[in-house]
């Protein structure tokens, strides 16, 4: 019975990690498509530079496309961060499972600790919502309030103090 409970906890942890990986891949899809489109446009702009007389207009357009590429490329950084957190979570779970004897399986506190550490490291609301759906926090746990969620700054936002 005890072993069944532990297997179930481990299976849930793995399923939650798989869901996070799927989300990470999905979140980077649009930026990668945008980046491909921008590179295509820049290549075309470079061709125009050789033949077109309106060079300054083309250069302005190219600058905008380079800037757009810089923005989209940052999603790669987000992807790497997200996957690193999932990797740490899985390593932590594997470490706990490996270091305990059968008589001393990881307790619910250990699983919750691993889950909470992952949750605090996740970098977007969609990532946290997915984790909460896959691995609901223990009864009475303090989830982000509606107010805390609404106070989260938007991607790309700038605030001067």
């Amino acid at each position, binding site marked *: 019975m005890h072993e069944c409970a532990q297997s179930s906890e481990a299976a849930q942890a793995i399923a939650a990690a798989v869901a996070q990986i799927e989300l990470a891949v999905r979140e980077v899809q649009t930026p990668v498509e945008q980046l491909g489109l921008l590179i295509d446009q820049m290549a075309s702009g470079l061709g125009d530079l050789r033949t077109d007389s309106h060079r300054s207009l083309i250069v302005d357009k190219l600058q905008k496309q380079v800037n757009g590429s810089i923005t989209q490329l940052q999603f790669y950084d987000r992807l790497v961060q997200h996957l690193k957190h999932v990797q740490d979570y899985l390593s932590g779970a594997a470490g706990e499972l490996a270091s305990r004897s059968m008589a001393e399986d990881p307790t619910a506190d250990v699983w919750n600790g691993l889950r909470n550490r992952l949750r605090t490291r996740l970098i*977007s609301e969609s990532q946290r919502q997915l984790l909460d759906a896959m691995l609901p926090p223990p009864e009475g746990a303090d989830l982000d309030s509606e107010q805390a969620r609404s106070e*989260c*700054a938007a991607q790309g*936002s*700038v605030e001067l*103090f």
Partner: protein
Amino acid sequence: MPRILAVDDSPSMRQMVGVTLKSAGYEVLEACDGQEALNLAKGQAAVDLVITDVNMPNMDGITLVRELRALPHYRGVPLLVLTTEASAEKKMEGKAAGATGWVVKPFSPDRLLATIARIVA
């Protein structure tokens, strides 16, 4: 032209921040974490602005801001945080440490440059 210290543990992010700043004519110094940035600052590296990530090994960005504010020659230097951290709690922590502003990644080069121009003017 003003000199900017860009601090991020991600080489690709340092590259993108560097390309953006250099395209506008800024001189750019780079550090791969808070500790390296602090060593540069303690080595009397004079800069007009620091742009730092938050989550980094060795020393995080909030600690870096706090440490820089304790250095007499960095007391008046603007310290801009550029991070994926979007929570109000983290932002308030940065503000309390002495950050000048908070930019959430992914940044738009135009917007970042406009913000910098405002800060270092």
